[in-house]
């Protein structure tokens, strides 16, 4: 569109973080401006952001799927238009010596959790339910966002965490000999047991009704960012460093990433398939690990771990089944009392044509 670009604010939870790389990439590579959108990012608390979108104060945001269900059940007219995280990012981490390998092993164990709300709580309840257990079968302990510290000091035997970040942190501590007897960790992914909706792009019903073109454009730009990040993590990391502090403290690392990014662009020009690209990421990490220490690489590895959660055959596509599982879990938890029309909670209509 040749008109003046629309000013738009995209709400995202928390604070700038490497996990938001696709948005940074989409801005920096011009996907949003191509779509006629001049994007600003606003961070904040998830319920606040959702309320603002529902109230029409904002139009777009990145919000968890279970939040959308709960919000719609409470009269917030929001719609999920792009399933960004294809896998639910929550899991349970446990030092290997605790012999917790499957969900069943959690029985009677002391398990840490940030708090009895939000995605981690939904996740653990779903995991237990999928394995025929309930909350009362384990000892849940609210520990805030302090899992590495508490796990390494043996305060809990396992902890509900985001599988792309904390297991890595704990492993790094273990490798440095700072995690008690722990040398390795086991991770139980909830997505292996239950397919639930996770973070995605949402908007409100008014925007969909009044300006579907805008929704389509924003989804397209967002999708471009996700795809580019999956394809070239080194480049995504470099772009993210413009938004997130503390990512590039080592100049040699930056140089290496630039080289890798250029090489990956050449590789992508050959139209490799999804597997080949995935393999290229693994190879990249191996090369970098030879040159740089764990501390320098940690955020990059978080990015790679997160990319695994996004990657799918059809990016952004949401299945009704996963919504049903999520809603069921919320009902189990007592968070959801009323029956909701899940089909109205999301739509795949705005996804770019395949």
């Amino acid at each position: 569109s040749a008109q003046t670009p629309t000013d738009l604010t995209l709400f995202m939870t928390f604070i700038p973080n490497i996990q938001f790389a696709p948005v940074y990439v989409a801005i920096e590579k011009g996907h949003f401006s191509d779509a006629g959108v001049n994007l600003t990012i606003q961070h904040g608390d998830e319920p606040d952001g959702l309320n603002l979108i529902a109230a029409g104060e904002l139009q777009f945001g990145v919000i968890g799927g279970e939040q959308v269900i709960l919000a719609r059940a409470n009269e917030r007219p929001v719609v999920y238009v792009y399933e960004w995280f294809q896998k639910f990012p929550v899991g349970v981490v446990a030092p290997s010596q605790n012999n917790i390998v499957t969900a069943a092993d959690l029985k009677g164990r002391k398990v840490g959790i940030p708090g009895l709300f939000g995605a981690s709580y939904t996740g653990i309840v779903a995991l237990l339910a999928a394995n025929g257990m309930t909350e009362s079968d384990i000892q849940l302990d609210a520990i805030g966002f302090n899992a590495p510290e508490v796990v390494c000091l043996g305060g809990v035997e396992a902890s509900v965490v985001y599988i792309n970040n904390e297991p890595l942190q704990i492993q790094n501590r273990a490798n440095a000999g700072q995690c008690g007897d722990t040398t390795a960790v086991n991770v139980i992914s909830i997505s292996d047991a239950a397919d639930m909706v996770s973070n995605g792009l949402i908007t409100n019903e008014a925007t969909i009704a009044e300006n579907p073109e805008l929704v389509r454009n924003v989804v397209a730009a967002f999708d471009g960012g996700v795809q580019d990040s999956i394809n070239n993590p080194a480049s995504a990391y470099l772009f993210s460093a413009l938004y997130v502090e503390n990512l590039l403290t080592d100049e040699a690392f930056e140089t290496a990433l630039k080289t890798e990014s250029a090489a990956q662009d050449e590789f992508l020009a050959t139209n490799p398939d999804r597997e080949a690209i995935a393999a290229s990421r693994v190879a990249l990490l191996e090369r970098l690990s030879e040159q740089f220490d764990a501390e320098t690489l940690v955020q990059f590895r978080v990015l790679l771990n997160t990319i695994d959660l996004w990657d799918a055959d059809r990016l952004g596509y949401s299945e009704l089944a996963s919504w049903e599982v999520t809603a069921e879990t919320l009902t189990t938890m007592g968070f959801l009392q009323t029956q909701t029309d899940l089909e109205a909670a999301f739509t795949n209509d705005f996804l770019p044509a395949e």
Partner: protein
Amino acid sequence: MQQSTLSTILNPIERDAGAQKLWVRRFIPALVMLMLLLFWQIVTMLEIYPAFIIPPPIDVAEKFYAVLLDGRLWLHTQATLSAVLSGLGVGVTLGLVLGYLIAKHPLLEDSLAPVIISLQSTPIVAYAPLLVIWFGSGPTSKVITSALIVFFPTLMNTVVGIRNVPRPLHDLMRALRASRWQTFTKLEVPAAMPVLIGGLKISATLAVIGAVVGEFISANAGLGFLITLARSQYDTALVIVAVITLAIIARILYWLVTLLERHVLAWQSRARTI
């Protein structure tokens, strides 16, 4: 003489005015609350914001009734209240003791100021890992956050109160060879009382928010937890119910301090001329 603590009027003629004043003083706060309620009702009726951002009073009242009936409100209130009271107890005690010592030994102020100020001005979340490790997810960490926020105003007002005890009265106590303890209980405490009570009023109010902040960091019960929970469940009415309950707790604590004030500072109103 029942009204002597309230009425500062000494001329009998003006006593009626005093009685009238008393009536106004009871009535006005209620009126203010009523007006706020009315304002709230009007705002929701004008639909300036959607009901899920500012729900109408009636929705909140219903929710209040519901959680009151199912016992959840009382459960969470209890959890918070016990943290608030313990926090208040610990914080005020520490503040009084340390404040007294600092007032007496300026050197102690110099030595401790950096430490105390650091404790006060840095966010508790920064120490969250240590707190969780040391105290687990039990109520201890909320007691600590509550005590911490209460501690400093108590300390400061204790220092000010004790330092401003009139020197001639100190001379009197010295001349009468009063022991340290006697000087403390019979001179310093009563003389510093107005300022101490002021500190206590601050403390009583801040203790509540302190406990709530603790509950935000890690907790599985309490009104702060209820707020987080209700927020995550998009139950705005429940958020407001929890907020109102917190305000009521604080109001009651404040009122208790006011009662204490009327009791121990009765002499002030007695001794006043018109």
